[in-house]
């Protein structure tokens, strides 16, 4: 049986990874869009993203569009692999007798 990923398994981090796994197909996702999709607060989302970034599962890029600051988040290949592995683990748990 595969092993659970303790970093990803936390509820909001799981949703972040699931959202980025689909939403980043066209490129990085803006922090504000991610926050809207997950209905999370700035602080809560920022803290969980920092944990995922530290694990190498997401990248966070900050830049300016004109004078307006912009934060974009993307899932890394390592993050996508870890997410797939965790989903496989969850399915195995569910299918186990």
């Amino acid at each position, binding site marked *: 049986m595969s092993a659970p990923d*303790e970093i990803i*398994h936390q509820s909001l981090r*799981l949703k972040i990874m699931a*959202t980025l*796994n689909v939403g980043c*197909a*066209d490129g990085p996702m803006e922090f504000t*869009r991610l926050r809207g*999709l997950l209905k999370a607060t700035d602080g809560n989302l920022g803290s969980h993203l920092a944990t995922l970034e530290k694990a190498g599962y997401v990248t966070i890029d900050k830049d300016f569009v004109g004078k307006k600051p912009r934060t974009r988040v993307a899932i890394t290949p390592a993050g996508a692999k870890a997410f797939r592995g965790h989903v496989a683990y969850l399915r195995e748990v569910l299918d186990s007798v």
Partner: protein
Amino acid sequence: MTVTRSDAAGALRDIEQAQTRAGEMRGYRHAAPYLIGWGLIWAVGYTLMAVRPQPEWGWIWLPLDAAGIIGSILQGRSDNRGGTQAVANCGMRILLGVLFTALFMAATYVLFAPATVAPFIVFPGLIAGAIYVAIGLAWLPRMGWIGFGIFVLSMAGYLFFREWLLYWMAAVCGGGLMLSGLWLRNA
């Protein structure tokens, strides 16, 4: 770390919900430029019809429809850069979809032979509305509301504003499509 079956089921449910929502939002952003583009074409086409004599109407739509089809194909290719082979054929599917819709409309005119010009003017709004409602029911709920709105507004123009029908279709339906596109773009 212990994960029970109940935890796993809950987590998988959360993942599915998050991915469905992210997929919908992505779909809206992809649909937005098509709605804005075709809304602009409708606005220009119907306005030109209102100010030009009826024999010229076909010549108005020929270049506009061609521009819409080419624009849609280019947009489809741009959306699918780096995608799979299945989505790489998107341009061809758009072209076939538009051609079949045109064929369906022509067949309907042959079958029901409208006695006045008003049904010809309104019918594209009904067809577009029906297609968007179908897309909404199958995949993207907001598209369903947009389609329903276009359908109802087209019929309202036919029933209550027939004297101003061309301007109605340009402003309300063409403009409505453009606004809908902006709404989807910000989803």
